[in-house]
């Protein structure tokens, strides 16, 4: 084995290692020190996580619903903004870009803490809408960025070509721009969903315990709770995130595998 392959394998192992104890703990029933491998498989933790009274499923759905709404709003406002920023000559272009992308750097908690009392007054706390609103700022820049890159890699003349063939504005968007945009946008959509999904502190502050997303539901189990249940929850959480990525990414990949031309720009 060559040296670099060895390093790579080592690095790969280091990245995979942290999943191992969570898997062991969640299937082990009681996992007492110093046993490394528990005696036999015990589904106690998983049963408890998915028992109807645990409300896990509804929390997963709520989390996904919020992430979905956040992403749809991001797409609706982000695509036109990215289009204008890349295709039109705007005054204050770089200023607008800086304003729209700034939330990437600034902790979301800072803005949410600032706006909390105003939300309280407007009756937006303890509501799903309030939570959706505070998930927008940290995720929107990624959608805008992804859309901008897609627009930049798209030759404007292709649009002209469609125009000359009689395609109206909406036809051009649907038949030419969107098919080109989708692969690049996937990265933005995945990030937007993941960011919304993994928010904890801002959801806690604005949802005030009434909007129970998956993290809000399980974090109490992590602080000194039963490791088996904590492990099961974190694995469920990771699985939801992973499934989301694989579904969006993989679905698109297989779609474009047959229509390979579109793939060149985005892999």
């Amino acid at each position, binding site marked *: 084995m060559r040296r670099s392959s060895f390093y790579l394998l080592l690095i790969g192992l280091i990245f995979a290692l942290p999943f191992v104890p969570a898997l062991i703990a969640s299937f082990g029933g009681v996992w007492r020190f110093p046993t490394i491998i528990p005696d036999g498989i015990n589904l106690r933790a998983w049963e408890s996580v998915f028992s109807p009274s645990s409300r896990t499923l509804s929390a997963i759905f709520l989390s996904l619903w919020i992430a979905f709404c956040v992403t749809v709003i991001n797409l609706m406002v982000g695509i036109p903004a990215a289009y204008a920023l890349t295709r039109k000559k705007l005054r204050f272009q770089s200023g607008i870009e800086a304003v729209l992308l700034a939330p990437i750097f600034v902790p979301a908690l800072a803005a949410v803490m600032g706006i909390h009392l105003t939300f309280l007054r407007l009756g937006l706390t303890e509501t799903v809408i309030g939570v959706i609103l505070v998930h927008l700022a940290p995720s929107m820049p990624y959608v805008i960025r992804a859309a901008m890159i897609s627009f930049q890699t798209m*030759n404007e*003349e*292709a649009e*002209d*070509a*469609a*125009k*000359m*063939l*009689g*395609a*109206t504005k909406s*036809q051009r968007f649907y*038949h*030419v721009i969107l*098919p*080109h945009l989708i692969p690049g946008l996937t990265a933005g959509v995945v990030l937007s969903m993941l960011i919304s999904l993994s928010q904890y502190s801002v959801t806690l502050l604005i949802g005030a315990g009434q909007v129970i997303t998956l993290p809000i539901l399980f974090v109490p189990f992590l602080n000194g709770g039963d490791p088996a249940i904590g492990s099961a929850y974190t694995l469920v959480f990771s699985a939801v995130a992973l499934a989301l990525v694989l579904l969006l990414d993989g679905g698109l990949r297989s779609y*474009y595998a047959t*229509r*390979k*031309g*579109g793939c*060149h720009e985005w892999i």
Partner: protein
Amino acid sequence: MSGFEIKNLSKSYGEDFTLAPVSLTIQSGEFVTLLGPSGCGKTTLLKLVAGLIAPDGGEVYQQGKELTSVPSENRQFAMMFQQPHLFPHMTIAENVAFGLRMRKVAKKERLKKAEEVLAEVGLGGYGKRYPYELSGGQQQRVSLARALVIEPTLLLLDEPFSALDPLLKVEMQQLVKTVHQQTGVTTICVTHDQEEAFYLSDRIALMQTGEVVQVADPQTLYRSPATLAVAKFLGYKNFIPVKVEQDSIVTPFGTYAATISIESGKYQWAIPSEAISLKGSLQGLVNEVVHHKGYIETVVEVEGHELTVRKLTPDAQALRVGDSITIGLPDEDLVLLRE
């Protein structure tokens, strides 16, 4: 019948570039080329005609109907670009049928039509493939088919062959010429390639620094360039200062009688290198001999003036530097140009 008319069309991009008001009338079925060096404004003019950019002033008419403010998608034109710009997510047939689909032609009909046009451009049977499976030259053919399938009233070509390698380029030019002869579609082509312009065009509009400087059929354009700059662009190398006095033209090599009336004064006499013969009354000395692919270029000094001669005859092949020879200059239809 005048097919297409451009009236005083102008466009400026700040101080960097200005297209002077351009007027040009194109007959129905005519193939007109906008020829000029890069940056002369030919592509801008084409895009104005296409409606892809809005003019600062002027109008365009088709069959007497004003089109200036009609959006390009409603003009029923077609355009080929330097790059094929095929839509990567559609098959070749879908690409070709795109314009028909935009016009709500039924699927079966438009795909059938697409296959027909694909056959016309020599790509019969390629319909089910995707663009990435085709070579650059084939893609450009598809692009041509896509433009033709909508039966455009005006076909616009924006340097469509300049990205192709020389052999493919010639093949495509032949195809376009054939297609033009068969369909009779009015065509405006933009190019910086003179060979291409001369081969394809019924008429050439020569453009320099944002202006159309001469419009003529290829033969006339080459035989009688309108200005010194045009002559230089077309490759003239011999410019001899002459003087016109009444009806005679005084040159360093003798005096000629003017066949048409011409104003007295100083001129430059532009002599095509091919028009000089290697037999004649003028004594000269060979200063330089360079062998090119299709001709031999000889620089001959006559009366203190260097003249470039292009020939591929046996006597031209025998010439060596330092030889004393005689040459003959053309003595009618002299091209006299103001400084």
